């Protein structure tokens, strides 16, 4: 992907760009708001990472300007402000996701890739398919290799999200936010419990597992090898 990073902190920007390049992305960088807006409007990017507090032009102002010009490029807002109100304001300005600083790079990468995927697929599917796993969104039914799997509503939503992001890492925070709409860190391993229950249902009895735990990052649903 071609990604634009607008971040004024040189060191933070350097780490971020190194990480993104090592993950196989092309990265452009702007160190202030004005230059950032110039780059964002003059070139085409697959996604943007915009810091909220920037010299020149505020990050939120850049996002609102892009949106008012009908630019739908997925934007991930980074901010040192981690409060519910700030998140709401960031998303209202037109950001697609909001990540408080400091963040784990794996988290940022997973969210960014999820955003870019979402931006691409505009069509509404009625069936999701990953390897032998098949989900009927209308009938709310799930089968693996033709075998019916009985899921609770929350397990269904969890699996739907994993399938929509199949092949990519999905973090615990992303699951908590997207499946349950919670924006806090639980003290308990609540997401792990839900995932392991789901894994029991979709992997048990099959030779190859599909739902993998990625150490230090999250989970990944992949077609059975």
């Amino acid at each position, binding site marked *: 992907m071609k990604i634009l990073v607008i971040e004024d902190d040189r060191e933070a920007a350097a780490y971020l760009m190194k990480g993104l390049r090592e993950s196989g992305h092309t990265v452009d960088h702007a160190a202030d708001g004005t230059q950032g807006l110039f780059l964002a409007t003059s070139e085409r990017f697959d996604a943007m990472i915009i810091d909220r507090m920037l010299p020149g032009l505020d990050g939120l102002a850049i996002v609102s300007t892009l949106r008012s010009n009908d630019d739908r490029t997925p934007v991930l807002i980074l901010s040192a402000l981690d409060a519910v*109100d700030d998140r709401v304001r960031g998303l209202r300005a037109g950001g697609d996701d909001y990540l408080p600083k400091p963040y784990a790079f794996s988290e940022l990468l997973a969210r960014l890739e999820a955003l870019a995927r979402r931006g691409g697929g505009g069509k509404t599917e009625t069936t999701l398919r990953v390897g032998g796993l098949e989900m009927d969104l209308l009938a709310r039914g799930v089968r693996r290799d033709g075998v019916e799997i009985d899921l609770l509503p929350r397990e269904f939503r969890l699996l739907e999200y994993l399938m929509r992001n199949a092949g990519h890492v999905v973090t615990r925070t992303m699951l908590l936010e997207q499946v*349950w709409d*919670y924006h*806090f860190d639980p003290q308990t391993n609540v997401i792990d419990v839900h995932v392991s229950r789901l894994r029991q249902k979709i992997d048990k009895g099959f030779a190859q597992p599909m739902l993998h735990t990625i150490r230090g990052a999250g989970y990944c649903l992949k077609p059975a090898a």
Partner: protein
Amino acid sequence: MFALFRTSTFRLAMVYLMLFAVSVFAVLGFVYLQTVVFVSRQIDETIDAEITGLAEQYHERGLGGLVSVIQQRAARTRGTTTLYLLTDRTHSPIAGNLTRWPDVTVDQDGWLRFPLQRAGSLVVGAAGQGTGDEAEHIVQAASFVLPGGYQLLVGRDTQERSDFDARMRQALGWSALLTVMLGLLGGVLLSRRLLARLEAINRTSSSIIAGDFSRRIPRHGSNDEFDHLAENLNGMLDRIERLMAAMRQVTDNIAHDLRSPLGRLRSRIEVTLLEEPSMERYRETLERTIADADGLLATFSALLDIAEAEAGSRQETRGPVDLGEIIVNLVDLYEPVAEEAGLRLTLTLDRPASTMATSPLIVSGNRHLLSQAIANLVENALKYTPSGGTVAITAGRSGDQVRLTVTDSGPGIPATERERVFDRFYRVESSRTTPGNGLGLSLVKAVISLHGGEVVLDDAQLRRAVDDGIPDEQPGPGLRATVTLPALASPARPSMGS
């Protein structure tokens, strides 16, 4: 004193003084004019009455009678206010207290006006013509021709009127002066009084600016606008002080409770670097460092969340929130966790009509913060209740409050520590081995207070009336957390009346 003239209160007092003085002058002037007109009319009427009276005397008693009456009256009026002169047709005096007929003509009002000198007797004449040792008086007189050619003149010394006039003017002058003086004095005193109170507010403000934040503006006790101002300013100061205290506490907490884990983290890295280089050892240290850093960051954002909730969050993310919905979702989230831990998680929702519009469990607030606070209570219950126990959540309406309880069958919290567990980083001694940062309940308290509610801890008193098949052995007294929040007035249902 000169500084006083520049104050707005003094200027205001002066404006009032001017308005007041103008109206006082207008009233006095009116009274003066009325009095003067009244007095001169009285003189006119007296003269007319005298002439009419004397003419009647002449008709009744003839010339002799008239002369005797005139002599009688002239003698009586020793104060010489009234003048009489009776002459024949050649103006030769017959009787009266005036020496001769004045040689003036009648003016347009029908009056004779002539100067009078008093030198023993009454002499008609201009000043300077007589001895000059007496002031010249003006006489106002009327003449009347009697049958037989006799001429009668009745006059009145207008000196009395002039004296009255002068005295009146003088009195008016003095009252005007007195009005201005009193007004000025009053204005100065009044503005000084107001200034003194303003000055008290200013002085207190200055000393607060200088750093003495414990100062408060004194109230006068009269419950007037200044007292209201003082109250409002003091209220503002109280709030600022609370915010500052909250901020200071965060700083203290950071200093005390974040420093030591940072120190541990640092020494671990240091020790690893001192050891024999080993890729595997480095990797392990880095992984543990990331885990520690994550823990620190979590603590840090928890502290900020608490501080923000305590300071009072901005209102923009507030709205109607259905606590029932929050609890249902939380139970959905935590049910597998409870099951995994061998706990029974029950939910009793006193919510007859379960649509958003009619739910009795609606409060005004921030959904995310309330979710997090209730999640913290549920997590605590799940964390501290031993396997085989129960965690019961109930929610219902009681009066205009929404009441939520989270009850567990765990070890409970000793009564003496139930208040302290809300303090930041405070952990009950027996729970120190369980993972946690000691901030969960602080956040609960901050969030619930922010929403105008209350959270109370007490013994669980789990009811055992129904035999639910759960073994009756209780490992502890259990803990019940009760949250009360003001209910948002239920959306008005369509009533028959309106």
